[in-house]
């Protein structure tokens, strides 16, 4: 037996279970959020304002890729598809990511604002999901919860720094948060899938209070106002996406589709 003949993907995440179709759909939402955000953050490597930030955003992207792999692998058990099938083989309407993670990297402040909102949501989500009745989701969430807490810390520190930095940095982070705020409501929208899953997953709406408390505390510390803007008609959970996702997928999936089955 040689080590090369062994396929690690068959072994992880180790929860060992097969997801029901509903749990698989739910895991795909979370996995797609993590995958798309990871792909976005990877762009910053070598482009961030300082070397430490190349490391930070790269490491956060790596954590998110780990979450995406575990979630998509678990989602795939329901339909006999691999994590790669799901990441590289699906077309845009089959993705289930929220619109917030699809928003462009923009400048560094835009990326930090996006990271603050996403990670504040993910901390609440994975904390609640750590008590899930579904063993697969519970195992993945228990691990992810600690990691996204670091991501949130990082985004909070930068938000405070930018808001309290120069007039320019303050104006920009206010603008970034205002631009992204319309995509917050989608994260907390309940739908039929959550109704069917019942106690297996936290209701998205139940996570809002915890998210608001954290964001309000950060805004208070940074002397920022909560943006007063209307929510966008974001429908990512049902496969209706923003104009940005197609371009992102084209870049992310190009190699795998050009060379099907290729491995490193």
């Amino acid at each position, binding site marked *: *037996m040689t*080590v090369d003949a*062994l396929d*690690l993907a068959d*072994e*992880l*995440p*180790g*929860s*060992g279970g097969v997801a029901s179709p509903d749990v698989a759909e739910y895991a795909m939402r979370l996995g797609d959020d993590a995958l798309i955000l990871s792909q976005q953050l990877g762009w910053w490597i070598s482009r961030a304002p300082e070397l*430490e930030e190349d*490391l*930070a955003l*790269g*490491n*956060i992207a*790596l*954590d*998110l*890729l*780990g*979450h995406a*792999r*575990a979630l998509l692998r678990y989602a795939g058990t329901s339909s006999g598809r691999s994590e790669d099938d799901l990441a590289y083989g699906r077309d845009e309407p089959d993705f289930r990511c929220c619109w917030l993670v699809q928003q462009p990297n923009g400048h560094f402040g835009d990326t930090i604002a996006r990271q603050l909102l996403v990670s*504040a949501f993910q901390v609440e989500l994975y904390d609640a999901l750590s008590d899930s009745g579904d*063993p697969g989701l*519970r*195992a*993945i969430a*228990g*691990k*992810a*919860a*600690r*990691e996204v*807490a*670091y991501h*949130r*810390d*990082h985004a*909070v*520190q930068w938000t405070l720094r930018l808001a309290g930095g120069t007039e320019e940095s303050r104006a920009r982070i206010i603008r970034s948060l205002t631009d992204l705020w319309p995509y917050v409501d989608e994260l907390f929208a309940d739908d039929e899938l959550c109704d069917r899953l019942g106690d297996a997953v936290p209701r998205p709406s139940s996570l809002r209070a915890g998210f608001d*408390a*954290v*964001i309000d*505390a*950060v805004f208070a*510390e940074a002397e920022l106002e909560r943006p007063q803007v209307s929510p966008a008609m974001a429908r990512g959970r049902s496969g209706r996406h923003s104009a940005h996702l197609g371009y992102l997928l084209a870049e992310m999936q190009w190699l795998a589709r050009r060379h099907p089955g290729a491995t490193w």
Partner: protein
Amino acid sequence: MSAVASGGRPVDAASAAAWDVAARVADPEVPVLTIADLGVLRSVRSDGRRAEVVLTPTYSGCPAIEQMRDDVILELTAAGYERVDVSFTLSPAWTTDWMSEDGRAKLERYGIAPPNGSAPVRRGPIPVLLGVKCPRCASLHTREVSRYGSTSCKALYECLDCREPFDFFKVH
């Protein structure tokens, strides 16, 4: 024995012997530590010919876990085990609390500040940072340069007394 063991050397002789072989495998990114020191080696079961090993990844995206798995198979195969099965468990989630005292001491001698045993306060939105001791001159007069370092599990620090940069194995 359940796959989710508490982590530790088995009591029966055959499994304990296989554990001792697997426990020699080093972390490829922090070679001074073995997978047993790290708490990555969760359980080993063996009848002397076959070995079943359970590992847990440190961080979700840690690439070292694949290398550790291969090294466990190579180490046990070289020791004469006919069949080696390695599986992974995600729960309970790995924590630096599982790092052995011996492992912490080895880390410090190697020049990496070991996890200082008290996680940052995570409940609040504004995290609390605790003092980290310089592994070279033992000063607590240190500064976090970057929360993220050369690997997922480490942060980059600088000692303000001896002026040396050093890695800190983050509390997790």
